[in-house]
């Protein structure tokens, strides 16, 4: 399945959001959103992905 992960189109084997994070090595301290909707960490395993889904994976960064 192809998804848009942090703005880049990529092919993943994973079927749900939790598996995508593991597959892409994004298993540190992150927050997730799918199609512009927040998905809390406890909901990731139950969140099935579909072809073309837009996934955002955000982490702590410098800010003012």
């Amino acid at each position, binding site marked *: 399945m192809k998804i848009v992960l942090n703005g880049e189109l990529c092919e993943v084997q994973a079927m749900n959001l939790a598996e995508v994070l593991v597959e892409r090595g994004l298993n540190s301290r992150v*927050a997730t959103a799918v199609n512009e909707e927040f998905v809390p960490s406890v909901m990731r395993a139950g969140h099935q992905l579909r072809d073309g889904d837009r996934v955002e994976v955000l*982490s702590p*960064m410098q800010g003012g």
Partner: protein
Amino acid sequence: MKPFYGTQLPSRMMLGTAQYPSPAVLAQAFRASKASVATVSLRRESGAGETFWRMIQDLGVLILPNTAGCHTVKEAVTTAHMAREVFDTNWIKLEVIGHADSLQPDVFQLVEAARILAADGFQVFPYTTEDLIVGEKLLDAGCEILMPWGAPIGSGLGLNNEYALRAMRAEFPDVPMVIDAGIGLPSHAAHAMELGFDAVLMNTAVAHAGDPVEMARAMAQAIEAGTKAHRADPIEARDMAEPSTPVIGKAFLT
């Protein structure tokens, strides 16, 4: 000092974590500034998130995540939810930007986003303008703190509209208020304190100074001086001179 959502801050300095020449300088600047709060953001994971997270933990200060770069209510609310999970805090510095060049807040969307977030248990620190009525609406929406700008973010212009900031301070004497953005010099920070504001939030003024650590130290001293000056009840400015040396008893020598 007034508590910020029930938390007594050990200092009146809130400092941003962006744009320092190095992580080491950032850490030294934080120590020199005596900042009690660090602002942070969320960005796409690039592998650096965990390192940055550990570094800010080591600063030993409170964390205030922002919604920087958000232009709509939805974007800001979603970012706030993501920040709450990542940073494990209900505090959110709410920014909803309305103008690309001035980064002026879109106060209409700001109030709406603040209402949604406050109802959802967030403790909102709204980055707002010096508009009194917007301040009232934000308080009505559930904010217990106001953060009016001094001048546009990164401009270093100081307090552009002292009249309105004075009016705001007088209108909301019991509300913790922070001058957020526009500080460029220690004199600006002292100015904010002299007007009776409770804290200042800055980033560029320190991070982009030639010597960020020395500037952080200067800011801390200015905040301390301004706070003491406010407590000491300064004199009113006046247009005409008033001799300080007694006139009575002056010799007749002309």
